[in-house]
């Protein structure tokens, strides 16, 4: 087949989720170690070294790939845990390591030449010059693009940079400043970028008050949901605040990205891989979302695109709503 193949890259927060992703039809699974070296450092989640080894063996036995995300930024004077994570990911047989920090990319490239490296969305590289730097300096083979670009911009960029592009296809949306967002840190003192948890659960509280559900982060009320109103995560960027006497979502609504309806455009733009977000979600989410996208991609490859609609996944969407985000950006 001469047509570009859309690789389905799926999340796994636990070994069970990894198996669920592989069984549901993922081409590739991405996951991380159980520490602050990856951007989903939540309690009870992620892989120890033995689990990672077993997970890679399971995926490889079925002809699938495993990518290890080491995509937080090492702390000043204590890069050792991040270096060890890179060394271990390499020796465990990761098909690629996903990195964001420029120093860590340098370490990985020098220490393990030949190890395939991907540039994490956390690096926030969204223009040809930035991506070319990572490509030329560290031999990065793929870039995960930030969710700020339109499909036309992705097509233009993909033609220019000469490395594979991976885009987010489904899941939570950030406020479009990956790797640079400090909103959560202001309320919790914990950084998503260096400690791996935006709105860490240890700082989250849900309270029922006056028939409403209040979500709080670091003691600050982020949102108030009416009875039976779909709820969202208490991330500060998706909070409802009062400004000029008006209550509204100032930055972003609780809503999930879903690209099922624009897969043909993404494929035509030359995108190599589609990333499903959600390493913090359960294996039921992984199985259903992966299965649905598998079907949609296969139908597209067979010339029958559009048979699977975006509505199929609305129950898994934050706030029960979905968007194509910046891909079909109508604002300036």
């Amino acid at each position, binding site marked *: 087949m001469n047509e570009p193949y859309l690789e389905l890259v799926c999340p796994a*927060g*636990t*070994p*069970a*989720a990894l198996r669920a992703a592989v069984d549901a039809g993922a081409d590739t699974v991405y996951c991380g170690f159980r520490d602050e070296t990856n951007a989903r450092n*939540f*309690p*009870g*989640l992620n892989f120890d070294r033995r689990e990672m080894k077993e997970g890679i063996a399971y995926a490889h036995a079925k002809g699938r790939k495993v990518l290890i995300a080491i995509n937080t930024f090492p702390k000043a004077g204590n890069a050792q845990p991040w270096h060890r994570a890179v060394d271990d990911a390499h020796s465990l047989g990761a098909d690629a390591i996903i990195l964001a920090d420029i120093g860590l990319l340098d370490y990985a490239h020098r220490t393990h030449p030949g190890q395939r490296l991907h540039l994490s969305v956390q690096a926030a590289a969204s223009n040809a010059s930035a991506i070319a730097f990572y490509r030329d300096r560290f031999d990065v083979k793929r870039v995960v693009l930030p969710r700020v670009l339109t499909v036309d911009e992705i097509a233009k960029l993909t033609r220019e940079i000469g490395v594979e592009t991976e885009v987010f296809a489904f899941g939570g949306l950030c406020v479009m400043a990956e790797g640079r967002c400090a909103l959560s840190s202001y309320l919790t003192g914990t950084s998503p970028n260096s400690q791996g948890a935006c709105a*860490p*659960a*240890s700082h*989250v*509280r*849900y*309270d*029922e008050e006056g028939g409403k*559900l209040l979500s709080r982060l670091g003691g600050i009320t982020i949102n108030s*949901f009416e009875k*039976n*109103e*779909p*709820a*969202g*995560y208490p991330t500060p960027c998706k909070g409802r605040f009062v400004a000029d006497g008006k209550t509204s979502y100032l930055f972003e609504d609780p809503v999930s990205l879903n690209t099922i309806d624009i897969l043909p455009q993404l494929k035509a733009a030359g995108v190599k891989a589609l990333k499903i977000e959600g390493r*913090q*979600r*359960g*294996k*039921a*989410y992984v199985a*259903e979302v992966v299965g649905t996208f598998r079907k949609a991609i296969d139908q597209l490859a067979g010339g029958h695109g559009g048979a699977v609609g975006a509505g199929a996944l609305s*129950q*898994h*969407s*934050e*706030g*029960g709503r979905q968007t194509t985000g910046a891909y079909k950006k109508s604002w300036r």
Partner: protein
Amino acid sequence: MSQTTRHLELPARLAGLALRPMPPKALEPLLGLAMRLVERRHPRLIERLAELAPARIVIEPRDTHHRFLIDINEGSAPVRLMLAHEDDEAQATISGRLATLIDLMEGRIDGDSLFFTRELTVTGDTALIVALRNTLDGEEISVLDDVLAFLGPFATPAARLIAVADDMAKRLALRAQDGLRSLHDMAHDQRGPEAEADALRAEISGLKTRLSKLETRAAKNKEAAPA
């Protein structure tokens, strides 16, 4: 995942009904038995839960009128039934329908999706609930398989019985769905029964005309056909 794994909506509802009037003293031995079963079948789960120690989490199946306390200590995670007005002193509480909680435990439903749709309520230490959810989700649990394993030689006939009950429940559910649809159609039918009978008569008359024309055409064709 095991072949015997199936949706437990009906059995869970029945269990919920059965649990409602049960006195705590009668439930305690059952709980103890269930815990020994979990410890035997999922030693790794207990190991992972112990990492959360010390922790006290209350589980509230809304449809049973009972509350359960998981008291996680190093090396153990006993579950105990709480008294009606007992002050729990728990760090966190999770509440939802029994069937939903079982589905969640078996990893059949995504906890976040349940939270978005408000089917699940979480109060107290969210980190503890997230850790418990992730720990359970990492384990391959099937309540049905666990119970069947406990039954030993009776597992096969029990599985057959459950399969029959499950099929019956599905058929009943389908029939109820059809009935509801008919009721809905009747309720929303603006024409009334007489108008509907007229419409049927007209349809039959039309069909008779078409049949008669077809018979005439067939007879003509037969006459015209060469011998």
